[in-house]
């Protein structure tokens, strides 16, 4: 019996035409949280899918709790050996209750009828083990926050005696408070002897919970070791294969004239009274807790949600914006927070996606799309953003997260806008792609475009903006200079709920 809960050696996996994993190893101890790091496409997910039996390996050996896996491992076997994955996209039946979800497919029966009372009791017991006492198993899952849903998913995995938990980007959709709770639960599981694989692009949060790291790049195993033995620079260098000297490049451009003025904007319940100015040659960052009203403010400015009051003035002219089409025409564009839901038509080609908001620029009078102009536009977007794609005709949905985000950005770079709003521009994309997005933001700034960034990652908003506005409870509660501020100062403003 080895010292490891899971050990994978010499794992190789080939997909038609490409070697996805080449002689990869992974060692995970019980009672340990291991960060599995690598850029998008490094092979992390493939490796985890082999561990959970979704893919079969071409060669190599897997040992789980001393049990040597002979032949192909299927999902059922993996489950029986105690391996569970908490997916990035939660797999929950939104209309069913918490306990119904936890017992889905394994319902407890009594005399041919479902024994709801017993299932509720066991669900409550399992949740209590995670330190969650205030969640009624009868609650409909769809009514819970994403964070709570994740807890239910973890509880569900533990119900079938999971000993090895793989968490894929668990923090990407959570608020700070929810992340705290998730960390607490992960620590709880660790003390109970679970082995946890933690996959995340948010390197800054790792030191809270991670004991060891394994780093992969391009389908190869690079290194592993105790987390404390690495510096952040070493981790990044190992992930990308070369050193990124500046994680947050920020060019300074002299501040120009006032371009955008928002006065007493009100919209729905989330935007109560927002006023701010934005100037040429600056990147204006918006910080705050999830639910502070930042996204809603931007959506209201862009015309995606109706406004209840307030003025938007661009270059001294008062704008009337009823819908996104009005905003786009007048020079304000928004790259939304949720790429898949709001940013892209995933079933359409990259070409159609980039052209969609710009058809007014490339159409003849009667509405015929001019192919030549369109090609030029696509070419321009492709080269200025280095989008990795086999051709512009492939589905936008088939690209990796970072490349999808570049397509969203390319949509808006194709036209000359005065104000470009980025809502969470780098969510779920890897370090190298992040830096590319920052470079684009810098370029826009130099061209005299006003860039507004909404980001929940403090290091990002502090690293890339020239000025930060902090929101809380639908209002702007503070303005700070990112060069001379601390995370604590921003958090103070971000939690300044006042009666006013």
């Amino acid at each position: 019996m080895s010292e490891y809960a899971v050990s994978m050696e010499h794992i190789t996996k080939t997909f038609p035409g490409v070697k996805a994993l080449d002689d990869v190893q992974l060692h995970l101890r019980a009672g340990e949280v291991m960060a599995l790091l690598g850029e998008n496409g490094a092979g992390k997910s493939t490796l985890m899918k082999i561990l959970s039996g979704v893919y079969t390996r071409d060669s190599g050996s897997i040992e789980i709790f001393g049990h040597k896996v002979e032949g192909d491992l299927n999902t059922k076997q993996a489950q029986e050996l105690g391996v569970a994955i908490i997916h990035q996209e939660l797999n929950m039946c939104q209309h069913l209750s918490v306990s119904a979800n936890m017992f889905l497919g394994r319902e407890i029966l009594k005399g041919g009828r479902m024994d709801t009372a017993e299932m509720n009791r066991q669900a409550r017991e399992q949740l209590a083990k995670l330190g969650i006492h205030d969640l009624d198993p009868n609650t409909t899952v769809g009514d819970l926050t994403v964070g709570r849903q994740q807890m239910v998913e973890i509880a569900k995995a533990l119900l079938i005696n999971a000993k090895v938990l793989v968490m894929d980007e668990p923090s990407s959709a959570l608020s700070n408070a929810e992340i705290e709770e998730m960390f607490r639960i992960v620590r709880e599981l660790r003390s109970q002897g679970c082995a946890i694989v933690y996959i995340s692009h948010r390197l800054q949060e790792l030191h809270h919970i991670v004991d060891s790291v394994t780093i992969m790049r391009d389908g190869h195993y690079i290194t592993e070791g105790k987390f404390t033995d690495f510096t952040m620079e070493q981790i990044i260098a190992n992930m990308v294969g070369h050193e990124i000297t500046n994680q947050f490049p920020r060019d300074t451009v002299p501040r120009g004239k006032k371009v955008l003025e928002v006065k007493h904007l009100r919209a729905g319940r989330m935007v109560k009274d927002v006023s701010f100015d934005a100037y040429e040659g600056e990147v204006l960052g918006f910080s705050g807790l999830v639910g502070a009203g930042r996204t809603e403010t931007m959506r209201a400015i862009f015309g995606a949600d109706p406004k209840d009051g307030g003025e938007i003035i661009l270059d001294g002219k008062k704008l009337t914006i009823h819908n996104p089409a009005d905003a786009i025409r007048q020079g304000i564009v928004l790259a939304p927070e949720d790429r898949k839901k709001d940013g892209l038509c995933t079933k359409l080609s990259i070409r159609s996606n980039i052209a969609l908001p710009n058809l007014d620029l490339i159409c003849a009078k009667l509405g015929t799309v001019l192919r030549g102009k369109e090609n030029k536009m696509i070419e321009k977007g492709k080269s200025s953003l280095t989008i990795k794609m086999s051709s512009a005709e492939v589905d936008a949905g088939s690209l990796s997260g970072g490349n999808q985000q570049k397509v969203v950005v390319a949509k808006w770079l194709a036209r000359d806008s005065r104000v470009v709003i980025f809502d969470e521009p780098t969510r779920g994309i890897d370090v190298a792609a992040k830096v590319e997005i920052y470079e684009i933001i810098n370029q826009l700034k130099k061209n005299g475009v006003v860039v507004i960034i909404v980001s929940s990652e403090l290091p990002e908003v502090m690293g890339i903006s020239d000025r930060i506005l902090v929101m809380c409870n639908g209002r702007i509660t503070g303005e700070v200079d990112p060069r001379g501020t601390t995370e604590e100062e921003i958090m103070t403003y971000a939690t300044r709920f006042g009666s006013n």
Partner: protein
Amino acid sequence: MQKKLNPMQRFLAIRGIASVLTAFAGVIVLMIIFSILNPNFAKPNSLLTLMRSVVPFLLVGIGQAYVCITGNIDLSIGSVLGMSAMISATMMCNGSHPLVAVLVAFLACMFTGFINGLLVGKFKLPPFIGTLGTMTIARGVAQLANGNYNTDNIGSEGAAQMYKDILYYGKTLGIYNGVWIGLIVWAIFFYILTFTRSGRHIYAIGSNVDAARLSGVNVFATTTKAYMVSAFCAFLTGLITMAQSGMGDMSAGMSYEMYAVAAAVIGGVSTLGGSGLLVGVIAGASVWAILQSGLTFANVPVAFRNIIIGLIVVACVLFDVLRRDGKKSSKKAKKEAVKVA
């Protein structure tokens, strides 16, 4: 960087072309089978008639394809068709000039299409319910047009005969006029869907309505355009059906909304929206028409005809779905591989 593809490769790379080719293969197979069953089936004269019988399915299929690509459905097609036939026939019987009669029918049909757009695009009614309502209302209007009776024959003198010839009985260059009308209408709507801004918008709202709106697409206008195209196609089919029978039948177009779905779906249009090619509808409509007339030629009793057609349609679509599923699983692996690379 991008490799230059030869025309053949470029053709095969068009999204959705595979479903279209499958459908055309189906057309050829059916033609061969029925020609063997009854050699008269492939005689030039019966082929000409067959082509003419494709037209109604083609027209309503085009309309339904437009609506399906936006991610909606139009159940009112059959009733709008009936309304068009009844209004025009009633007015002609009462002495109106065919042009006037056609114009009034046109306005009534387009208005229905606009209401569909309003209900679905503006007030966000589920398309199934919204168009179920207009379907029932339009059928009521069709019945009301001549006081709940079918109309008399519109006659065969002067303008009335000309109407029948232009739309159905006459030939140009040896081919029935109806076929020409179908082809011209198809070409126009093919152009709009494939090469214009409105066409792009139709695909975009079917693929992701939120993303489309945030890209500046007017969802209401686009939805309404699709429903009005559908209504226009139903209107035209109504005129052709009326020309064929020479009278207004209150039950004209019954179930045509479903034939339209069949033509669109067999031709590779997704009912979920965002994908589909109008070329496919030609194949889809042909499959439907060939089955109808082929089984008649083969002397199959009506009841069996229905059962066979039902089975074949399900088989057609099932085959396409299985083919796509097979492709998806290998595509998924490839996608994973591309990401890694």
